[in-house]
């Protein structure tokens, strides 16, 4: 009886920890452990692993407990559940800004953060360390006899011209489920009306909805779908094994560029080690050849050499689409366009 009560208590006390949905948990133990970094991240562990290993080589004794979740789950964990994490790494810039704006992030200053340009840092709390374009990933097989679309307009034309080929064979983010998908869609909608016409066409062809880029890329490669829209280019680039089956196209009318950001949550227990992790992240990302790990690092030349790149600005503007009413309206509109009866 007593054992039952104590185990019940254990289960009850463990419950809040399980309230947010963990996709993957990877331990990076350290010999002679002096600190443990609990990292909550939207980046796949195998993409991030080389970087963590390099960090541990430079900072022995720091173990890393790496949790992969969806971007909205980071909000659940940090804002609603008050979970303890030392670092939050996310592709959903708007949610990161909201965390910092609402006072849920610690400020951090160092030589490395001081070297960041103003647009890559917000309030000494949110630090950008990658630039990742939203791309179209196309199946080589399905576009063998069609001109490769370079813009959204050309994609619309291709879809309209070959409805039978593309029916139920288009994929994009389900913005209701994915924070990054919502960010890409809202930025697209803000930048150009073309997005809504594209959404209409895609909805008419019964587009498949996904929660992550990796699945879309693999499905394009396998031939299950022919077009994936708003896929993280960085994920597609690293899948070199699939490059003979897919095209990765950054739309030339405009390419939304997401910056992956990192912050130290307010209830971090090892903020000092977290700061060193951020320094390492910035130093790696901001030097030439920052692609030592999967994410294309930011180089100052990249933005100026391509005028169609539209980086999403870190700032309070990102809070707009997080507004309850605004989000509800946007999703209603998006559903009206994208989710049409077949």
């Amino acid at each position, binding site marked *: 009886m007593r054992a039952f009560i104590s185990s019940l208590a254990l289960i009850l006390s463990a419950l809040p920890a399980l309230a947010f949905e963990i996709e993957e948990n990877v331990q990076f133990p350290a010999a002679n452990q002096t600190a443990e970094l609990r990292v909550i991240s939207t980046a796949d562990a195998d993409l991030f692993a080389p970087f963590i290993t390099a960090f541990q080589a430079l900072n022995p004794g720091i173990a890393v407990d790496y949790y992969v979740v969806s971007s909205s789950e980071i909000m659940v964990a940090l804002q609603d559940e008050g979970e303890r994490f030392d670092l939050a790494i996310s592709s959903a810039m708007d949610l990161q800004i909201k965390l910092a704006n*609402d006072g849920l992030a610690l400020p951090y200053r160092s030589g490395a953060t001081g070297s960041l340009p103003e647009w890559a840092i917000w309030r*000494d709390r949110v630090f950008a360390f990658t630039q990742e374009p939203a791309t179209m990933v196309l199946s080589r097989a399905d576009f063998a006899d069609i001109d490769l679309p370079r813009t959204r307009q050309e994609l619309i034309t291709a879809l309209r011209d070959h409805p039978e080929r593309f029916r139920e064979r288009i994929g994009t983010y389900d913005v209701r489920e994915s924070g990054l998908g919502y960010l890409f869609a809202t930025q697209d909608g803000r930048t150009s009306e073309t997005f809504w016409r594209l959404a209409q066409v895609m909805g008419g062809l019964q587009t498949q909805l996904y929660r992550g880029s990796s699945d879309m890329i693999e499905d394009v490669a396998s031939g299950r779908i022919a077009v994936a829209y708003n896929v993280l280019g960085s994920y597609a680039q690293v899948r070199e094994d699939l490059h003979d089956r897919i095209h990765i196209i950054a739309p030339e009318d405009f390419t939304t560029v997401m910056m992956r950001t990192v912050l130290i949550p307010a209830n971090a227990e090892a903020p000092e080690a977290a700061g060193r992790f951020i320094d390492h992240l910035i130093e790696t990302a901001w030097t030439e050849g920052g692609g030592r790990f999967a994410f294309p690092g930011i180089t100052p030349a990249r933005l100026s050499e391509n005028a169609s790149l539209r980086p999403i600005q870190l*700032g*309070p503007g*990102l*809070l707009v689409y997080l507004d*309850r009413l605004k989000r509800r309206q946007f999703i209603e509109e998006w559903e009206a366009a994208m989710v049409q009866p077949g």
Partner: protein
Amino acid sequence: MWPFHAPGSIRLRLTLQLLTGAAVMALVLFLIVYSFARQIGAESQDRILSASATSILDATTVQSGNISVDIPYSAFTMLDNSVDDRVFYRITQDGEGLTGYDDLPSARQDQGTGPAFDTVTYRGEELRIATLTRRVSVGGTPTRIDVTVGQTRDAQADVLARILRMTVLLGFGFFAASALLAILAGRSTAASLSRLAESVSRRGPQDLRPVVAEVPSEMRPLVASLNSLIARLSAALTRTEDFIAEAAHRVRTPLATVRAHGENTLRRVSKEENRVSLREMIRAIDESSRAAGQLLDHAMVSLRADQLELSPVALRPLVADLVDRLRPVAELKDMDLRFEASEEQEVMGDTILIQNAVRNLLDNAIKYAPPETPIDVALTRDEATATLTIRDQGIGFPATGADALTGRFARGENATGVIGSGLGLTIADEVARAHGGTLTIANTEGGPGACVRLSLPLR
């Protein structure tokens, strides 16, 4: 010692007063600029908050009986700034939260419709909030929409800190420039005073012309007073010289007349005792004449020595001339007046004074030495001085207190048998001093008689 009322230096007082003024002005300037900047900063933040709230309110519509708020992207991007201030907002319908941060306070205290502003503490930070209100009709029912937008004040604090630094620098610069001007003003005021003092003290002793230096108007009364004083002094000096000349004339002329009458009478009188009396009288008249002459000489010497006017004086002809003029007097006593001079000697001095001194010394020698003794007058020189030595073979000076004889009206104890004023040595001594020379009196070594040396610096 409060420097403002201390009678010390005008320059110091002026400088301190100007510096104090400059410090007060700098402080006032600082306070005005700073408070103005603070106000402008607050106003510009209020304007942006108000614009943001307005753009949200403009995007608030009624759609099929429901309030719909479509916050424009620019509503928040316009609040973006260099220090990334935090942004909060809240939209309410009749006080009920529609969207945004439900615990954000409202700045609206009244029922008005214009923008209301307030500064509140929210989530541990100072927040400037603006609230705008609009009344809309939902299905015929009036309802009130409040939009509140808030922003932290870090950027404003940042700008204020920069303005503070700037203003402090400005204040200090202003003060430094004023201080420099104050020092210059103090210096130039003191300079015009010292220029006047210099122009007055640079004048020659005979220069009693009025001061005509260009001076600031405030100093003109001083110069006028000074000129009036100079004029009075000049008049007094002229009067004194006139008086001396007049006195000499008026005393000597009647005495000479009386003496001439005496001599005439002496020739006509044959009775021996009457002749003795007459000779005594004539002698007394001579003494009086001489004393009057010496008194006037002394007065003249005192006057001229005070305002010594130097010109080259050739000593040999001067002394030779006097020796020649006094030789008849010496010969009356059968005295041999011998003069020898090695070479020409020139000193810088007042001819009249030197003549006076030499004449008195020769006169003394003739008077106090016994008859039928020689008097040797020699003019010698060494490197820097010309020395006139007069030796007689008379009674000499008393063994004690030879120096005291140069005092006015002092006479040697052993000279009681001779009538004299006691002014001769005094005159010679004063002349010697006025020329930077010396008068030494001593008894001739190894013999009877006195030895007087007048030394004057050579030109």
